[in-house]
């Protein structure tokens, strides 16, 4: 069931996920499409998220945007300061030089080469914002030795999370704290629960699909949503994921298609990264169960694999 509508206000709106923003002329959404998109969100009863570019919006856009309850997603270097809940940072340097408020959510997009900075960055942000969402932009390029390094990094991050719990702090870190409370899959769900409207007035599962091929749209504001093979965006139609309990995994349909050519099939790298995080979450959960007599129905059992694909012959 559709729940969220993401409206990209311009072609060069900030990427807040795995895809790279490939600017296509810097076109702003027209005011007609913006109004129609808001109307679509209202009649479909969707939560609306506006994604901003670095540039200031043309005159009149802000008034239209404020006609609906919404969430703003902004680049940290946006030329105009808005009251935003979600701020996007590209790289460690950007987030180090920014003052977040306690209510804000930080999306930190980093490459593999910056992963070992994460424990220091998370320590610095600890208690200073509501949540840190880390997106590893080149997750598909992980090597076996980098998996080992990532595991070590997660252990360090896990120690911080444990210390937070001890101190009563609650800054969330998507990589480790989400799985502590999840009893079922909670993924991106682009194409199923979320669609994105691009400035050309057409729908896509997410902006990444638009940047790959704008011709493969999911309908437009005139024709309405036309999601072909929509079932493939649902968990039940994902042969690997439906057997998996890395419930926090982004399960990125765009990344899936990029790496395996199918939106319902994750790459080996996405699975291993998610399982390294899951396993560290399991250690944290065991710690709080043991030391705090924490009572929860959440369970993260020990398993022998890092990629559920390895088990597929048993299914």
């Amino acid at each position: 069931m559709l729940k969220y509508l993401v409206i990209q206000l311009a072609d060069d709106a900030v990427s807040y996920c795995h895809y790279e923003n490939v600017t296509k002329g810097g076109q702003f959404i027209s005011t007609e499409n913006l109004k129609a998109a808001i109307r679509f969100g209202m009649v479909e009863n969707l939560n609306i998220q506006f994604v901003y570019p670095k540039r200031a919006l043309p005159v009149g856009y802000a008034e239209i945007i404020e006609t609906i309850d919404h969430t703003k997603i902004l680049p940290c270097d946006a030329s105009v300061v808005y009251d935003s809940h979600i701020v996007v940072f590209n790289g460690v340097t950007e987030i180090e030089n920014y003052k977040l408020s306690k209510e804000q959510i930080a999306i930190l997009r980093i490459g593999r080469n910056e992963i070992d900075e994460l424990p220091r960055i998370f320590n610095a942000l600890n208690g200073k914002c509501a949540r840190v969402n880390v997106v590893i932009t080149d997750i598909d390029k992980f090597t076996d030795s980098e998996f080992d390094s990532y595991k070590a990094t997660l252990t360090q991050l896990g120690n911080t999370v444990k210390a937070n719990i001890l101190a009563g702090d609650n800054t969330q870190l998507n990589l480790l704290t989400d799985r502590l409370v999840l009893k079922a899959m909670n993924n991106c769900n682009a194409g199923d629960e979320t669609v994105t409207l691009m400035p050309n007035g057409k729908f896509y599962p997410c902006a990444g699909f638009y940047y790959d091929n704008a011709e493969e749209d999911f309908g437009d504001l005139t024709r309405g949503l036309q999601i072909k093979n929509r079932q493939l965006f649902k968990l039940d139609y994902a042969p690997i994921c439906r057997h998996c309990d890395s419930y926090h995994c982004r399960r990125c349909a765009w990344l899936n298609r990029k790496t395996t050519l199918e939106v319902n099939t994750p790459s080996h790298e996405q699975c291993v990264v998610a399982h390294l995080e899951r396993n560290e979450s399991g250690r944290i959960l065991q710690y709080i169960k043991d030391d705090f007599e924490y009572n929860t129905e959440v369970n993260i059992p020990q398993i022998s694999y890092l990629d559920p694909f390895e088990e597929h012959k048993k299914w």
Partner: protein
Amino acid sequence: MIKNNDSSWQSNIAKTITFIVTKDCQLACKYCYLVGKNTKERMSWDVAKQAIDYILDNEYDENFNHDSVIFDFIGGEPFLEIELIDQICDYIKSELYRRNHHWFNSYRFSFSTNGINYHEEKVQRFIEKNITHLSIGITIDGTQQKHDLNRIWKGDGPERGSYDDVVRNIPLWLSQFPGGATKVTISSADIPYIKESVLHLYSLGIHEVNINCVFEDVWEEGDDKKFEEQLMELADAIIDNDLYKDYACSFYTEHMGKPMDCKLENNNWCGAGQMLAIDAAGNFYPCTRFAQYSLRDKKAWIIGNIHSGIDKNKLRPFLTLDRCTQSTQECIDCEVASGCAWCQGENYDAADTPTIYQRATAICKMHKARVRANNYYWNKLYRKLELEGEEKPAEKTFNLNC
């Protein structure tokens, strides 16, 4: 006794590796799914050698650790490139020996040919040299009328059938491969000729006829009824003349046309992804049907190449694909689901989005017609055997080629 189709050599434990040695063919068969045939894309020795080296270098990789291997040569028409094929096969044999590879003496070379240049000296020399490790199937569609309806020479000018050019080589082929099977393809226009064509192939001495309807959306209103009638008439002819004792036709298989369970009977039909195909550019595919020359509306599904190897991520969708995830609810609920085939490549080509997870259903009414005729066949045969005091045959399995 009842003649069964032989199952493919080592079908469960052999890796099939297909060399698309050429995209050229002497013929321009009307039902051919190869939409991009051409004379330019011929495999070079350099590409072939690099492909073999990659495969043999990765002997213990999960993609190549099968007990046995079938090296399959396909076109276009593979025998147009017999000199290259001979060089490839010689190199494979010498490398298997030199490396003490576990496929040494557990390999087979396989061909599906139009049979036109089967008699030529170079081809015959190759056959003689490799006869103990060789499978060759010649495609002949049945009677001259049926064969020439579709299997015509390419080129401008009046349409010219290829029957005479093929049938002259059948005796030679059967003398070398007495159990030789042929593959017959049925499209809409062929339906009236099914019965006489199968019987004609039997009369030529071919004891095994593997026959299937094309998976493409070519069927016209009423084709299913005509198809069913043809299969029932063929059933009468096979049973009334006791042909079932010595001949097999893959249309009739005992255990088909039953409902299927999504947990217990959920395997994919097609072996795409278990196989490996290599083209002239050195690209790897999950099966030949995913190469660009086989696709009408979709991009080629390339899973790697001879330089960088196989991208295992691009195989994951194939290796985790099951029957129910790709099927429509109508197919899942179908009361005659078992035995209904599909081609993963055609599914991909016909899908609304670039996916292998949308099952094409153009063949639906033809499958249902086949199930009805198949029921007729087995009911009639059992009754005959019963009246003649013979025991019911043991369970049969048939190998349906895609």
